[in-house]
């Protein structure tokens, strides 16, 4: 529980971190219980297309007369699910590879870090696009795994560096002298020390995955079963031609505002955490 108390202490002092945290919590609530309260109708009624904002439709209606707000709420779930899974994948792989490389040393370390270098250099988006095109799966797990394919490399380098410097510290040596197993040392001694690092990377990973994922849907590359923000943008730009009429501003801008607000939340929160974990960044 001390972690939560610590978090609260940071948030109380830093208003922008509080704002970022609030935004993220709001989106998590929207994605988890929001869809219970809204209903996206399947009936297409072009006569009610692009209605302006009203009490019945707070964000107006889309090209088929459906409520835009309901679509935004309903579309948040798939976006966040894929992003959280993708970031979990890359964090888990990054931590494992980083720890193994750091403790193995020698040739194994060298090979793992060369592989990480390759994945750091290859631009991730073209690789993700090409793989998604060949796999053509609408499963959120598959999409998340593809997005995570390059995401682990940066983290594995930093975890390795941390592991290398930690391995020389007294408390790890003390644990080894006491005859604790390697597993025990890794889990009980080292993980808490790199925890803050991993938490930051997890949040940044979610933010990056949302960027990649929405972009894939926006370009119409990833197959989809249910609507989400990227699909909404894709329809607005390509299919429904909303971009050519000024009446459709509300429908076009709603998903964009939803994405930007969430990304701003992530940036505000992670920057505050960064300042906390790297005291050098604190304004002197």
């Amino acid at each position: 529980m001390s972690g939560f108390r610590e978090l609260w202490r940071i948030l109380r002092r830093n208003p922008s971190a509080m704002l970022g945290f609030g935004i993220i919590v709001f989106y998590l609530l929207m994605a988890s219980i929001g869809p219970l309260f809204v209903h996206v109708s399947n009936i297409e009624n072009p006569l009610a297309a692009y209605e302006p904002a009203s009490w019945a439709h707070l964000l107006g209606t889309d090209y088929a007369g459906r409520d835009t707000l309901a679509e935004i709420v309903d579309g948040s779930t798939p976006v966040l699910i894929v992003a959280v899974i993708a970031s979990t994948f890359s964090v888990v792989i990054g931590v494992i590879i980083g720890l193994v490389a750091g403790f193995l040393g020698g040739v194994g370390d060298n090979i793992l870090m060369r592989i990480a270098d390759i994945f750091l250099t290859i631009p991730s988006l073209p690789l993700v696009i090409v793989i998604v095109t060949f796999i053509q799966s609408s499963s959120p797990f598959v999409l998340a795994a593809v997005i995570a394919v390059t995401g682990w490399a940066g983290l594995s380098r930093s975890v390795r560096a941390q592991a290398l410097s930690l391995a020389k510290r007294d408390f790890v040596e003390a644990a080894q002298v006491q005859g604790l197993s390697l597993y025990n040392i890794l889990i009980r001694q080292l993980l808490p020390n790199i925890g803050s690092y991993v938490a930051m990377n997890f949040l940044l990973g979610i933010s990056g995955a949302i960027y990649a994922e929405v972009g894939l849907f926006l370009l119409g590359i990833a197959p989809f079963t249910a609507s989400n923000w990227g699909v909404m943008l894709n329809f607005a730009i390509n299919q429904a031609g909303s971009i050519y009429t000024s009446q459709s501003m509300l429908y076009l801008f709603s998903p964009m505002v939803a994405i930007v607000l969430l990304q701003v939340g992530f940036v505000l929160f992670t920057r505050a955490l960064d300042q906390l974990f790297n005291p050098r960044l604190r304004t002197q």
Partner: protein
Amino acid sequence: MAYIARRFGVSLFIIYVVITISFFLIRLMPGNAVDFLYFQLLASHTVSPQQALQQVQSLYGVNMKEPLLLQYVQYIWNMIHGSLGNSILYPGTSVLHILMNALPWTILIVSTSLIISFFIGISIGTLIAYFRKSKFAVLVSTIMTVLSAIPNYIVAIILLYLLADIHHIFPTGGAYSPEVAPGWNIPFLFSVARHAALPVIVFIITQVGGWSLGMKSSVVSALGEEYITSAHSHGIGSRRIIQSYVGRNAILPLVTSLGLSIGFMVGGSVFIETLFNYPGIGFFLITAVNGRDYPLMMGAFIIVTSAVVLANFLTDLINQRLDPRTMQK
């Protein structure tokens, strides 16, 4: 020299890995593109199996009936020699021809916006680091934080909507107007600039936040160093301290991240070129994906990745020039 040679070797190795990944994707995955095309041709009953094999070979450059290892060697041989196969969407055109016409446009918009946003970013970053206590600097910092959070395709859509579609200020589609004759003449260069303006503006808006915040924290930590205090106590003017003492040291970590940034921007150019119909590599990558033109798609992937790998190599060289410490490694 040894360092440069070693880095170059690593770059070539990464390109080799990329080619291997593409071979794996088009040849070894279940339901892969080569098998698919072959069986599609057979099922159409318009060609003999022999002709189908030939057609597959002309598109992908591999002979399906040979052992896989041989096909792999042949594929790498072809890629090294620039024979990336033929396009399906643009019949009769080689993939290399299409992509070599597209590559300069991607390099143009990415390098222009990288240079502009880098210099705007380090200027803003130095200023807000120096005046970090003032309200104005806090406001600028906040704006930069928000800008760094906005995905580039969203800025692109907003600009497309406001400046191209509604107000018709900037043209979209193509890299220059069909009326002008390509060459070193004023109308052509003006037309190129007008067509590149929107993609470049998008990149600048979305990149400048990251650079200025990075520069800010770099300058703030450089200001705390003892050699700065020492320089002040020697009575060196603050303008000179900012430029030669703080600036030079604070820029180094940012130069290191230029390489990563190039990769990210080239990735983003896929969205931006597609949204603006700008005929760079990213545009052809997406056109190929949507048209299931696998030879063109893999060619675009290999060319774009190799370009990023080589750009990384170049930034390594620059970095090494600026920071002699990296030479020792």
